[in-house]
């Protein structure tokens, strides 16, 4: 419990809670319309009225950041979900098959995984996006597949470790069927480090999703999204710094908070 009360952890929890609210009920924080602009108020610096200033069309940047949270965070979460499920399943099957029927299968599949890990994640995601078309959901798929390799490795290593434990042999000797041993003993005991890694991977995914939409492969304008907000501010960086710096700071803050929490979860195991 004391770990949860550390100041950095408290701040992180607060940030993550704020993110959840931003994603599901943005009106509570920013009641304005993220798409409606007042051309008269274009490129205003941050003030009490416009916390993050306004963009070239006079839209309030703070409102756009808050309303953009849903797409960014949902894509990142989906990416981790896809990566965890696909990678976890591959790792579980390879780990379970090794040494019995499928040492060869394990070898071949894990070499594919090696290739997957060797290709830079961004590049892999770009390939997927280029194939499936632009949009946050194909980004999520691309980023997720990029992470699947690491998930598969961790899961496989855990399965192999747990398989060597005495209680797994004991279960088989008790008369539990092989599938029962896998689902009741091996999976629950192997899953924990994988879950910890998923929490850690969420921060990276937020960053990757933003990076790819920054490159212009994300949502079509004018819908707000964190990466595309930073990208849109690029043209005015010399005169209106807030357009890039403030949404960027939000991304950094969220990634740091999520990563910090993931470490706390990992430690408390």
């Amino acid at each position: 419990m004391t770990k949860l009360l550390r100041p950095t952890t408290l701040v992180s929890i607060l940030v993550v809670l704020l993110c959840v609210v931003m994603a599901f009920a943005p009106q509570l924080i920013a009641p304005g319309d993220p798409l409606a602009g007042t051309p008269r108020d274009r490129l205003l610096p941050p003030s009490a009225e416009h916390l993050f200033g306004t963009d070239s069309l006079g839209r309030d940047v703070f409102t756009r950041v808050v309303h953009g949270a849903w797409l960014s965070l949902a894509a990142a979460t989906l990416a981790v979900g896809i990566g965890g499920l696909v990678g976890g399943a591959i790792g579980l099957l390879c780990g379970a098959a090794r040494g019995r029927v499928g040492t060869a299968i394990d070898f071949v599949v894990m070499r594919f995984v090696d290739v997957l890990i060797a290709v830079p994640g961004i590049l892999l995601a770009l390939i997927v996006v280029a194939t499936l078309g632009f949009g946050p959901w194909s980004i999520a798929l691309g980023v997720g597949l990029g992470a699947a390799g690491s998930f598969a490795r961790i899961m496989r290593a855990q399965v192999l470790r747990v398989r060597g434990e005495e209680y797994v042999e004991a279960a088989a000797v008790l008369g539990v069927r092989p599938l029962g041993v896998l689902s009741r003993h091996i999976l629950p005991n192997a899953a924990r480090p994988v879950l910890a890694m998923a929490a850690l991977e969420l921060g990276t995914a937020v960053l990757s999703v933003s990076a790819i939409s920054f490159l212009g492969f994300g949502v079509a304008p004018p819908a707000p999204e964190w990466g595309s907000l930073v990208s849109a501010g690029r043209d005015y960086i010399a005169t209106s710094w807030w357009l890039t710096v403030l949404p960027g700071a939000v991304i950094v803050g969220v990634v740091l908070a999520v990563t910090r929490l993931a470490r706390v979860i990992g430690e408390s195991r």
Partner: protein
Amino acid sequence: MNDNILEVSDLQVRYRVGRRRIEAVRGIDLAVPRGGIVALVGESGSGKSSVSQALIRRLAGNGEIAAGRVVFDGQDLLKLPMKRMRAIRGGSIGFVPQDPNSSLNPTLRIGEQLVEGLRLHLKLGREEATERAVRILGDVGLSHPEARARQYPHELSGGMKQRVLIGMAWSCEPQLVIADEPTSALDVTVQRLVLDQMQQLAADRGTAVLMVTHDLGVAADRAEQVVVMRHGQVVDAGPTAAVLHAPTHEYTRDLVAAAPGLNSVRLTASAAPVATEASHPILEIRELRKTFTLRRPGAAPEPFTAVDGVSLAVPAGRTVALVGESGSGKTTTARMAARIETPDSGSVLLDGQDVTTLRGEALRQLRRDVQVVYQNPFGSLDPRMSVAQIIAEPLRAFGLGGRREQLTEAKRLLDAVQLAEGLADRRPAELSGGQRQRVAIARALALSPKLLVLDEPVSALDVSVQQQVLQLLVDLQAERGVGYLFITHDFGVVRQIADEVVVMRQGRVVEQGPAERLLSAPEHEYTRALLEAVPGTAAR
């Protein structure tokens, strides 16, 4: 000058765990006379190791000495500056650690490790120290000391390593040696040699020895005085003969009664046994053979025959003890008998049927009749399951009864192994070693098997708990008529539980027969050596 080399008064040690403080040692008094051997005896958690660590101020990071005096040769060790303390450690106080396998630096030669201490404490030159190191290795009874000095720790056996450590403890002519469970990791025959060596050195050099041990037999054989600890306090102390042979304190009496080496009575069941035809064998193994391939880095793979033509039979409702030292092949034999491993040749017959080659579903059905209890109660239970789930698991695996009936049956089994029903929702980590082993036994009995293979089921437990678990096994056998194949290295345990004994050495059976005959009049020389090496025998 005082008669006592070491006098401890009101020593208190506590540990910080989170925000709690745990009082491990609550004010003990202790004295070691010059040249005397004192045994500090207690079960796990009694605080005996904390005492031995506190004496040389080497407690774990979260431990602190709260109060007390440790007077060694006229000076209070607790008040000395760290620098003087370091000169005393290894100099005037030698230390023999518990586990020889992790106490030597694997990257240094044996000789170098001895030389280090000699140069530091006796200020010897390199050559002189090297010569001395070789002599010390000879003194502790190692053959070819010059060659040994040039070897690395992994090239020596456990017993040889412990001798090196004993040599190290004595190398700088100490006045006191503290030995923390010096032989717990060793086989009995090796243990005997190592203890002989220690006693010899202590007598020759007039060194005082404080021996920390859980084994009353060792204490009874070797020590002049015994101090019994429990819950961080001294409950009994005095000359060995008085304390152990005519114990006055209740706890000491219980310990002595439970110590397998000290009493040699076959445990009898509390209830009358069910009638079983002792004549028909429930398990029969014939000419079992198993060869492993040893792969060592830098050497060609060589075959190693772990079990070489072993035959034995377990009658229904009786206990056959399979005895041997480490590496004798007893565990491999048991694993083949339970069909966890497949023999290279030979056959396993259960109830007259050949089950040697069963596979898949047929092998799974065999588990209804044959169950296994493992040595380590910490490893054989799934840490994420509750006690009730663990015990009900075999029932679930064979689809016996609904969820509710399984739970009722689990509670009934908990009761059968004398555990409170309230434990059903606990996880293994919340149980003590003895409780876990009872859970493992309950699980093994869930399917009412005809044969239990017990692989060292009590060797990880304290003596008093060991006694309770053995009694439980005897009672359960009487109640249910289960046959036991009982693997153990401990002849004390054999005396308490076995009807028949099979002695193994290097993969072969050297002697087998009824327990009474084999234990009282062993025919084979090796059996005799094993029996004589059991600690506590000399005292009886």
